[in-house]
């Protein structure tokens, strides 16, 4: 049943249904409504969890790591500067194979200071060993949390995950969302069963250091787990579809792509605007489609190559910039399509909350068709 609610509230509600036992978070715009709602749920005894009001994001994730290691399902949420402050713990949590799920309310990184949306924050942690899932709307955001817990806690995977949704654009938007009942959620997501835990009855040293004889092999195993996560995501997404009627078995998702000449590639909430723009372009007779990337890590390179094999031109919309080398998604899509003969252009767009309209999407397609790309789109040249 659809209910009308704010995106952040939908996240808090789904997190409640995932039954975390320890929540540690530090408030930061635009993540605040999520943690406020969760704190209220704890205060109302609606959720049976310890809520640790840590003094920083760094400690938020550190506390989650400890609680996870001790055998609890944990949750946190952050964004932007907060995620940057967690950088060190992010690598550590993944390396220690703790199945932490954290919501990222995507926001730009300073300087200049900006509270507005882009995806620079999570993209900058792409090499940290966390699964990265990007949601188009608040329904998908909620659903991906359950899928993330299921995949992360799989003893064959044991990695943490970011569930990313665009700050303000989704966090602060009210729209209809269907949430499972607690019983339905329990049926999909079983109780946490830690692979190993700190336990006096069975002592274990966790987080030891590895000499050069071992380090590469540990990193290899993490990489292997990340690759296995692809199939685990497909399976968990399919099972979700079977139970709830919303299928997430694709790591990528095509929209009007079958006969498209030009494919846009994007992640997150911009995909909705792109779809509306594509409908208008289609009405005008233009063969344009969208490939939405839902799973950025593990990166679905072969799935992307397969989905785009029949297009002639690809325009990637990047809400991030790897300064000195273009957008991160564009770079990786180019790599995935290497040798295919497809023209791939990258567009840095919507940084720091710059609004994107349907006509902007059409303009990007125009540029791609003219062979113009690998550029910032929509710069206000008058202030440069």
């Amino acid at each position, binding site marked *: 049943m659809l209910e009308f609610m704010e995106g952040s509230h939908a996240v808090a509600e789904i997190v409640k249904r995932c039954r975390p036992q320890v929540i540690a978070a530090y408030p930061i715009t635009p993540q605040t409504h999520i943690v406020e709602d969760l704190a209220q749920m704890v205060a109302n005894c609606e959720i049976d969890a310890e809520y640790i009001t840590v003094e920083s994001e760094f400690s938020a994730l550190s506390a989650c790591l400890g609680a996870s290691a001790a055998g609890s399902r944990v949750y946190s949420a952050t964004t932007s500067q907060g995620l940057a402050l967690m950088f060190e713990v992010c690598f550590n949590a993944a390396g220690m194979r703790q199945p932490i799920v954290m919501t990222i309310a995507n926001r730009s990184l300073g300087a200049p200071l900006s509270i507005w949306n882009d995806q620079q924050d999570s993209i900058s942690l792409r090499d940290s060993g966390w699964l990265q899932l990007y949601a188009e709307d608040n329904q998908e955001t909620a659903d991906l949390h359950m899928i993330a817990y299921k995949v992360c806690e799989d003893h064959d995977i044991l990695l943490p995950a970011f569930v990313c949704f665009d700050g303000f654009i989704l966090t602060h*938007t009210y729209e209809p969302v269907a949430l499972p009942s607690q019983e339905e959620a329990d049926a999909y997501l079983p109780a946490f069963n830690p692979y190993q835990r700190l336990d006096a009855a069975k002592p274990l040293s966790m987080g030891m250091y590895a000499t050069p004889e071992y380090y590469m092999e540990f990193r290899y195993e993490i990489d292997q787990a990340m690759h296995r996560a692809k199939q685990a995501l497909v399976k968990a997404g399919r099972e979700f579809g079977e139970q709830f009627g919303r299928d997430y078995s694709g790591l990528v998702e095509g929209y009007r792509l079958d006969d498209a000449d030009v494919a846009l590639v994007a992640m997150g909430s911009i995909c*909705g605007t792109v779809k509306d723009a594509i409908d208008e372009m289609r009405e005008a007779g233009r063969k344009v489609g969208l490939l939405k990337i839902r799973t950025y890590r593990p990166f679905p390179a072969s799935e992307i190559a397969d989905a785009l094999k029949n297009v002639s031109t690809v325009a990637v919309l990047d809400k991030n910039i790897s300064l000195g080398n273009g957008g991160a998604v564009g770079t990786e899509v180019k790599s995935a399509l290497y040798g295919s003969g497809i023209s791939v252009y990258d567009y840095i767009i919507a940084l720091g909350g710059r*609004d*994107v309209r349907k006509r902007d999407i059409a303009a990007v397609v125009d540029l791609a068709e003219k062979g113009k790309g690998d550029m910032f789109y929509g710069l206000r040249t008058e202030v440069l």
Partner: protein
Amino acid sequence: MRELRIHGRGGQGSVTAAELIAFAAFEGGVYAQAFPAFGVERRGAPVQAFVRFSDARIRLRSQVYEPDYIIVQDPTLIRDVDVFMGMKSGGIAIVNTEKPDFDARVPEGVKVYTIDATTIALEELGVPITNTTLMGAFAAATGEIKLESLEHALRNRFSGSMADKNVRAAQRAYNQVGGAL
């Protein structure tokens, strides 16, 4: 799809108005989306909030540039902000003002309803917070939301006598604008 842009000042409840209008529309059986113009504005600064109404799931995430409807919560905004910007012919504007003959360039084909929402709010709520009053006017002027849905939205948001007061304020505005139709 129809789009509404609400102009107000920080603290006047424009975001709440957007949320409640969208909620009422959703209760009435259509898809709706409500969101603020995300900013760091403090109390008193001009702010905007947006609502979309559609029979299909709403995917568009851009701000509202060509609204079918606008609500102007504070007459002083008309001086500071081009509240009518992008409005289409056939659009409807609800303006809170004591002066029906206010001074502004209204685009051709836009129907303007003025209402002294501040007085109604002061009389019914005891505070000059006009968002719920203007929602009643919006319901009457546009037909986008039913009065029952609006009342339900208000009772869902407020409780006890506060709910009653807000419902009365919305009803008065609804009747006043409805009577003028």
